[in-house]
């Protein structure tokens, strides 16, 4: 057998962002042994990039808010493809999760009377996002990390999981390598929680870091679990576009929440030109009303700049395509204009959006208190992912759980800003609780040595002597990213996606021939080569699902089917491996919503 170090845990958690940490805390609170594996150092996960806030109906700022309104907002945002049970749990449990963070040391911005302050955000009817300036994600991950390290969790930093092992249809363990030394580690566990986050690296322009290669999705898929809603990739409307090296870096929606407006090159607020029917009643008619909304006027309706992300992103693409974009291929996002409205605008911007101020000042030489920013859509979030049971977060493989971005269901066709941080907390906790419960009732499953050997052998393939036509991993990755960006991006077309499917097939062959230089000692080339199969799997799942959904809904926009199809609103798309190992996409009807929830949705129409 290959040289592999073995670790045993009751619950193994893969990924140490918000969901992974919250799951680890929950599981260790249930008195089981917990191992936490992460690809980077602890506390560096993409959760730190979350800026705007945590959506939770605390009703501290507007007492009209309640879990019901939050639920209805989430369902409307997701175009009713959401798993309504998850949306219900989420809306009900988020406030407690936020308060729990405060009890662990988080310091949110405060209201006048000393409670947690909440801000406006796209798609949320009332000010709902608990926040800390524009670095809420950092506050959240640091709070969870600092609390978690005292709970007896074994943290395995800088290790990447490359295979999951099952035994008689339930999870038994995972194989990983450590990035620093290149050694292999076998984790035996009674339950595994995947909290690996997103897939942003499948695209060229993304707000995600190198880590987000869809590992969890690919691991679960290979282990036999079902994926769902893979056609719904969220393109955040506002990423930086200039200079080229920062393209894709996120510009928080908080800028618009604080009064920032989107303008085309003619200075027109183009968001007023196209307001979708189902949001018309909630949207401001004129600029004045929109401004009053951002300044806390409870009788004003929100400006169209704060419509859902899918819609805003598409409007921006339209402006750019029709030649009304900014010089570097974006549109303008202007917060500096509020100087005309309030006297201490400069101070206010620096205080409310300090990270944005520094980001633009340092990376683009732009003072956002004086000039508009140039922004354009960037790949941000995967609404789809591993299909899980809404209550327990267990996937279709017994003992394999998933939480956070890598799980599907809560967000449907489009995620509302702020709902992801609350998603991490609510479902991270649930996954940890239920994984611990599952683990307590089981013993460790056996692992076959030959499968471990095969896993190690496959991982070492890139070090084999160069095959004919061998190439480096970076070129293959870049080509995949460019291809997905061009062919399966914001605006999709059947013919383009067929080409993408073909290209993925070819890239798979090339990925198999990838060779790397050097040895196993902290070798990013090797790491990139091992990330390729996951990227290819999720890219294929996205493309196939997107082909199958012949309508436009939420984040999925088909040029050849530009309108919504009520029939298509009745099913989710499921991706799974068939007996022969190829990918299958099938339609799965959405269960009828419970009457009480239906009533809530109607009341908040």
């Amino acid at each position, binding site marked *: 057998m290959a040289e592999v170090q073995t670790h045993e845990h009751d619950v193994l958690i893969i990924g140490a962002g918000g969901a992974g940490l919250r799951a680890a805390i929950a599981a260790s609170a249930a008195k089981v042994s917990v191992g936490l594996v992460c690809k980077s150092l602890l506390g560096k996960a993409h959760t730190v990039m979350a800026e705007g806030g945590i959506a939770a109906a605390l009703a501290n700022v507007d007492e009209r808010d309640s879990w019901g309104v939050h639920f209805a907002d989430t369902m409307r945002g997701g175009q009713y493809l959401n798993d309504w049970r998850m949306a219900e749990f989420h809306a009900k449990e988020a406030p407690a999760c936020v308060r729990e963070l405060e009890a662990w040391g988080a310091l949110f911005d405060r209201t006048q009377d000393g409670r947690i302050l909440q801000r406006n955000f796209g798609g949320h009817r009332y000010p709902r996002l608990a926040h800390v300036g524009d670095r809420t994600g950092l506050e959240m991950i640091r709070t969870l990390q600092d609390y978690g390290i005292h709970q007896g969790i074994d943290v395995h930093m800088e290790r990447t999981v490359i295979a999951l092992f099952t035994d008689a249809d339930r999870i038994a363990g995972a194989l990983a390598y450590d990035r620093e030394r290149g050694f292999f580690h076998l984790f035996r566990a009674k339950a595994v929680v995947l909290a690996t986050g997103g897939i942003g690296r499948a695209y060229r322009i993304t707000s995600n870091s190198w880590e987000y290669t869809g590992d969890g999705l690919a691991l679960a898929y290979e282990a036999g679990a079902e994926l769902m809603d893979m056609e719904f990739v969220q393109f955040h409307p506002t990423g930086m576009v200039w*200079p080229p090296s920062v393209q894709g870096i996120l510009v928080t929606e908080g800028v618009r929440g604080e009064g920032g407006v989107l303008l085309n090159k003619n200075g027109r607020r183009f968001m007023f030109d196209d307001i979708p029917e189902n949001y018309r009643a909630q949207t401001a008619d004129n600029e004045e009303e929109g401004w009053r909304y951002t300044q806390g006027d409870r009788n004003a309706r929100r400006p169209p700049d704060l419509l859902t992300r899918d819609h805003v992103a598409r409007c921006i693409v339209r402006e750019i395509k029709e030649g009304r974009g900014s010089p570097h291929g974006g549109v303008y996002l202007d917060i500096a204009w509020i100087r005309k409205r309030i006297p201490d605008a400069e101070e206010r911007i620096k205080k409310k959006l300090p*990270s944005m101020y520094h980001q633009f000042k340092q990376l683009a030489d732009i003072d956002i208190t004086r000039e508009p920013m140039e922004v354009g859509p960037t790949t941000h979030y995967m609404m789809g992912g591993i299909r899980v049971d809404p209550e327990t977060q267990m996937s279709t493989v017994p003992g394999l759980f998933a939480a956070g971005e890598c799980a599907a269901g809560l967000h449907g066709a489009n995620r509302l800003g702020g709902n992801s941080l609350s998603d991490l907390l609510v479902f991270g906790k649930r996954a940890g609780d239920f994984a611990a419960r599952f683990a307590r009732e089981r013993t460790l499953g056996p692992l076959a040595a030959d499968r471990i050997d095969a896993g190690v052998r496959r991982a070492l393939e890139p070090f084999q002597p160069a095959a004919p036509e061998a190439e480096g991993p970076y070129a293959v990755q870049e080509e995949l990213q460019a291809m997905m960006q061009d062919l399966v991006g914001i605006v999709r077309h059947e013919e383009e996606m067929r080409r993408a499917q073909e290209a993925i097939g070819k890239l798979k062959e090339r990925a198999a021939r990838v060779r790397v230089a050097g040895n196993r000692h902290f070798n990013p080339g090797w790491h990139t080569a091992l990330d390729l199969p996951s990227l290819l799997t999720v890219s294929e799942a996205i493309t196939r699902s997107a082909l199958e959904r012949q309508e436009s809904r939420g984040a999925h926009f088909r040029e050849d089917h530009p309108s919504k199809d009520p029939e298509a609103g009745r099913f989710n798309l499921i991706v799974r491996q068939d007996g022969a190992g190829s990918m299958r996409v099938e339609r799965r009807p959405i269960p009828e919503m419970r009457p009480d929830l239906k009533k809530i949705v109607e009341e908040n129409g």
Partner: protein
Amino acid sequence: MPGATFRIWRGDAAGGAFADYSTEVTEGMVVLDAVLRIQAAQAGDLAVRWNCKAGRCGSCSAEVNGRPRLMCMTRLSELPLEQPVTVEPMRAFPRIKDLACDVGWNYEVKKRIRPFKPRPPDAPDGTWRMAQADVERVQEFRKCIECFLCQDVCHVLREHAKHQEFIGPRYFVQVAALEMHPLDAEDRLAELGQTQGIGFCNITKCCTRVCPENITITDNAIIPLKERWIDRHYDPIRRFLGWLRLKGGAGSGP
């Protein structure tokens, strides 16, 4: 397109040397872009840590032209490109490979700091009330992204390797954040002088200067902690006054 030479330290714990790489320079490029470009085209196994590329995660710490910096926030336009740009790993930590070093010590130190312990909730619903004014002071410290540049530049660690007796600026910031937290009821002052070595800090403010989050580490965290520690150990007058007040308070009771 203009080019520039990057003198990057290659090697591991056993030793290493600088190697020169040339690459194109385009508008708005940062040092990390150059390093990743070199990695993709010339040195596939060049070890470097990075994540967010926006100064938010604190992974890409290194020394650029001798100054501890986040590579993702160091624009090439602010460096003299006539000479090679030197990029080397942080010096206050053991080396792993190339630009990556072993920062595990920091995580061990963090574990030794007594965790947050809140006072009982203020409201019947289990929540607390805090004024923004009191929260702000601690929020500055909580901006820390744990890039460990302050640890790297601190001569107590860097030159004198007092890793066993001194927790470094990052963790004074953390202790300050906990000690000044409006809700915290724990007392961490005893360790501050003993195992955490606040007396080793000689306030040269290098940590403040390198902080990419602009946390005023020395003035707002370390010196106030030193003062609190002095309250406890070197200020008999305040202790006497405190004692009087305590007695007075007890005396005026029923």
